[in-house]
């Protein structure tokens, strides 16, 4: 199988879906000739023209609102939000309008739109271009949230998102755009709500999302050398969440660490840990640990920024503690 970058995978997914369905269009800042700052969309405007690859002024609430209205009337917009941090700007249109329209209309109106944006720190971009804000939208009923962890997931999840009749928010890891992974030539879709067991293990479960899947895989390598067998699971979508796969693994290994790049407090890690705690409690031999980004605005200097994100070493250290039965956070 060929290896392509995550960036190419997203580009392919969009091109394939736009060829398949003429109601699909892309809207956002510098999506056409510029192809976005990350060059993910390069070449699309040449094929589909400026009527379907639509450059907007710098007006996130405006083009998000336009996408909502377009989606309600028969189009399938893919909104390009240049940085995940800008999601705060579109909150009313995303959470008050897109997320609630189907429900408020008693099921009569649909909002089939995709908001594609990104997450991830350590690009030395400081606090307003480095956040991982997927927990914000995962909190809102009516929105689906996908977190691709590789080029393969990025393509399969994007195609599913475009065909979904609900608003879907996809967060790509902006540090992974140039990472290559095997992606089939033939068409495939990845269904939502199906976690992927990246690595099987028996002693401890590492649940990682998006950028943190690689971190967990690296941690599992190190643990394996110490004789600790770690299972690594990528939920792929957090709404819907494949609870069953996570619980099954928790019951098997009886120890779980949840790793996510959003801020740890009130975040994805807490939600997943809590569900495991509620539904697999009597199978746990250790507290479920959360590992999120440090609860500080992301600092600019590399000397500090690198401290804020979970690392393989930190995951390994916590895994060792759980394995040894060390007392964790006990008074």
């Amino acid at each position, binding site marked *: 199988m060929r290896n392509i970058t995550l960036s190419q995978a997203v580009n392919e997914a969009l091109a394939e879906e736009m060829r398949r369905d003429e109601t699909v269009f892309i809207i956002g800042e510098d999506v056409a000739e510029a192809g976005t700052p990350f060059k993910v969309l390069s070449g699309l405007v040449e094929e589909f023209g400026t009527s379907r690859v639509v450059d907007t002024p710098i007006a996130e609430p*405006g083009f998000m609102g336009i996408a909502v209205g377009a989606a*309600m009337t*028969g189009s399938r917009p893919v909104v390009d939000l240049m940085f995940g941090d800008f999601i705060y700007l579109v909150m009313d249109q995303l959470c008050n*309008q897109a997320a609630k*329209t*189907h429900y408020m209309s008693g*099921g009569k109106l649909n909002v089939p739109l995709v908001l594609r944006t990104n997450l991830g720190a350590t690009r030395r971009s400081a606090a307003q271009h480095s956040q991982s804000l997927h927990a914000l939208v995962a909190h809102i*009923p009516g929105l689906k949230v996908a977190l691709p962890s590789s080029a393969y997931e990025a393509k399969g999840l994007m195609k599913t998102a475009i065909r979904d009749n609900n608003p879907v928010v996809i967060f790509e890891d902006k540090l992974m755009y140039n990472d290559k992974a095997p992606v089939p030539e033939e068409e495939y879709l990845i269904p939502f709500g199906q976690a992927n067991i990246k690595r099987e293990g028996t002693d401890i479960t590492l649940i990682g999302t998006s950028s943190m899947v690689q971190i967990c895989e690296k941690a599992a390598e190190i643990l394996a050398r110490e004789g600790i067998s770690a299972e690594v699971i990528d939920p792929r979508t957090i709404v819907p969440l494949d609870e069953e796969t996570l619980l099954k693994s928790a019951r098997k290994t009886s120890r779980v660490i949840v790793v996510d790049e959003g801020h740890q407090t009130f975040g994805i890690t807490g939600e997943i840990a809590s569900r495991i705690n509620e539904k697999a409690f009597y199978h746990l031999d250790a507290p479920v640990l959360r590992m999120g980004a440090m609860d500080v605005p992301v600092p600019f200097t590399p000397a500090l920024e690198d401290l804020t994100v979970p690392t393989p070493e930190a995951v390994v250290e916590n895994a060792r503690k759980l394995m040894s039965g060390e007392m964790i956070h006990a008074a």
Partner: protein
Amino acid sequence: MSPAKNKKSNAEDYLRMYRQMVRIRTFEDNANQLYLSAKMPGLTHMYSGEEAVAVGICEALKVTDKITSTHRGHGHCVAKGAEFKEMFCELLGKEEGYCRGKGGSMHIADQSNGNLGANAIVGGSMGIATGSAFTAKLLGTDDVTVCFFGDGATAQGLMYEVMNMAALWKLPVIYACENNGYSEYTKTEEIAAGSITARAEAFGIEAHQVDGQDVLAVNTLAQKLVDRCRKGEGPFFVELMTYRYHGHHVGDINREYYRSKEEEQDWKQNRDPIIRFRSWLVSEGIATEDEIEALNAEIKDDAAGAVEYALNAKYPDASEVDMHVFTDVEHALA
């Protein structure tokens, strides 16, 4: 009143406009009564006084044309073709309401008639209306979208973002600003600097101001602008000068601190769109007083019947609470 052209051949249209205005007024009187008698959950915002705006514009639209509405949305909904029964059911939270009771007064949507829904965020539907016009352009239909909003919404930033894009992309959308003089409990002049129409003109959007209590004037202008939108000459902006008879919402009773009873009486007695149009219909010989009284009575009965029906209608089953969260999941929490 504006001069009527071809009044004989258009008699049917005029009577329908009158009828629609009375239907709105009657609907609101009943809704107010339901609120006062504590039979309606929550509260509601009355459109009474502004009927000529919704009717004048919607009578210029096809069923497939779209509108977006506001928290003061019953008038738009009726004018775009909605039925009393489903509307009252929605107001009372009943299963047969337009939104199965899940939206209520502030979120009535009637997709079958192109009403994309009322919106409880002031200015919240401006993006939606513009996006609807974007779809028409993308898919090559000739549908026009009218975005209803109040003078209060002109203070929201979203309006400027979407007018900018609508103008850049020549979208078939008409921004209809219902200037009823008050932004909730504050005079418009206290919240809006400069001219309202000049806001649109700054983007190169052709803007008009019209007497919103004159249904013929509104309709004549709307027909012209809708036609031009269909030809790709949009967008347009219209400021409709009107007045709301009730407070910001039905519970806003003590309002002398922001406007006088004399002012209200003046609008009600001297500028009422229904009274004005009725006397014009009679004087032009389009209808007799008796015919109009009969029409009014018929609408009153119709509304009373719909209220009665809605009061007795059933509430949605408790199992509906987690339905319609997602299109493809029957019960989101199952």
